[in-house]
């Protein structure tokens, strides 16, 4: 993934061709607002999180005001408006997970990663966030990393998952 513009050396939020694609799509739709989430996710995929400049870029691309983007961006907790690690752990803290040992899982994760909720590991790999429900009550306790949901968490399972991810990244 290329995140730095080779000529200017600045952070690039989104490659130019993707922006153009979105611009063309926006011109075609009667309500460009429907593209907001897609565009914000695209920026997030590319840049890791959505900075203010990302909101402004998206607004300009879709012909909307930055506020209209920000309304959506701040509404969803899976759109990150602050820097996060390369992988974000969403740990479910809803009732089913809680009754099946969610608290212990949370404790375990905090210990293993050495961070609290809302924090990022010093190596910039993991960010730990609570989330209200992952829709995986049947597999409680559950967490989500990236687009993958992991259920029936145990200490060993967590160890394996974290290790695998670290390996992937390296």
């Amino acid at each position: 993934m290329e995140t730095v513009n080779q000529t200017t050396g600045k952070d690039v939020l989104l490659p130019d061709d993707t922006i153009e694609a979105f611009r063309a799509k926006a011109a075609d739709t009667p309500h460009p607002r429907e593209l907001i989430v897609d565009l914000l996710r695209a920026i997030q995929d590319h840049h890791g999180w959505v900075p203010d400049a990302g909101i402004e870029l998206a607004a300009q691309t879709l012909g909307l005001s930055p506020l209209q983007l920000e309304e959506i961006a701040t509404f969803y907790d899976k759109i990150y408006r602050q820097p996060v690690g390369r992988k974000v752990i969403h740990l479910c803290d809803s009732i089913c997970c809680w009754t099946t040992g969610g608290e212990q899982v949370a404790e375990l994760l905090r210990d293993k990663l050495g961070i609290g909720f809302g924090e990022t590991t010093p190596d910039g790999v993991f960010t730990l966030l609570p989330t209200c429900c992952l829709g995986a009550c049947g597999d409680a306790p559950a967490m989500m990393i990236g687009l993958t949901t992991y259920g029936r968490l145990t200490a060993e399972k967590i160890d394996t998952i974290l290790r695998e991810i670290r390996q992937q990244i390296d």
Partner: protein
Amino acid sequence: MNLIRGIKGTAQAYWITLRTMFRKPVTIQYPEQKRQPFPRYRARIVLTRDPDGGERCVACYLCSAACPVDCISMQAAEAKDGRRYAEWFRINFTRCIFCGLCTEACPTRAIQMTSDYEICNRDPLDLVYEKTDLLIDDTGKDPDYNFYRHAGIGVVNPRGGNEDEKPPADVRDLLP
């Protein structure tokens, strides 16, 4: 019988007034003799300061609204640090009836009453007190109370820094 009772009753009344005439009057000769007011006696109004030495009055106009004789007037203003204060504050003591409704209305404990009742004067204008005349260097009752420590405006402490407040929220925060 009625007649006798009537005559007797009338005569008794005359006797009482006559007898009273020879008793010692209860009048206190005021300027020469002075009376010590009771501890809870409430008269002349003052403006107090908060424990940090700032003016307690936030010029909310509630005392002037509560005043039945309209003797309080003021103008609110904003200081650089966001504190709302009285640009000027005036009590016309020629009108004040010391009813105490202003102190009851005061949400910041700024306006309080003292037991000084001797505020007569020959020139009515001398009884129009301005803020400099009213403001004292003391907290009066409730010595620990400071409105701005509870109001959430961020004057005494930064916003969200008061005892009963959470730190400022941020919509861009990652945590829910």
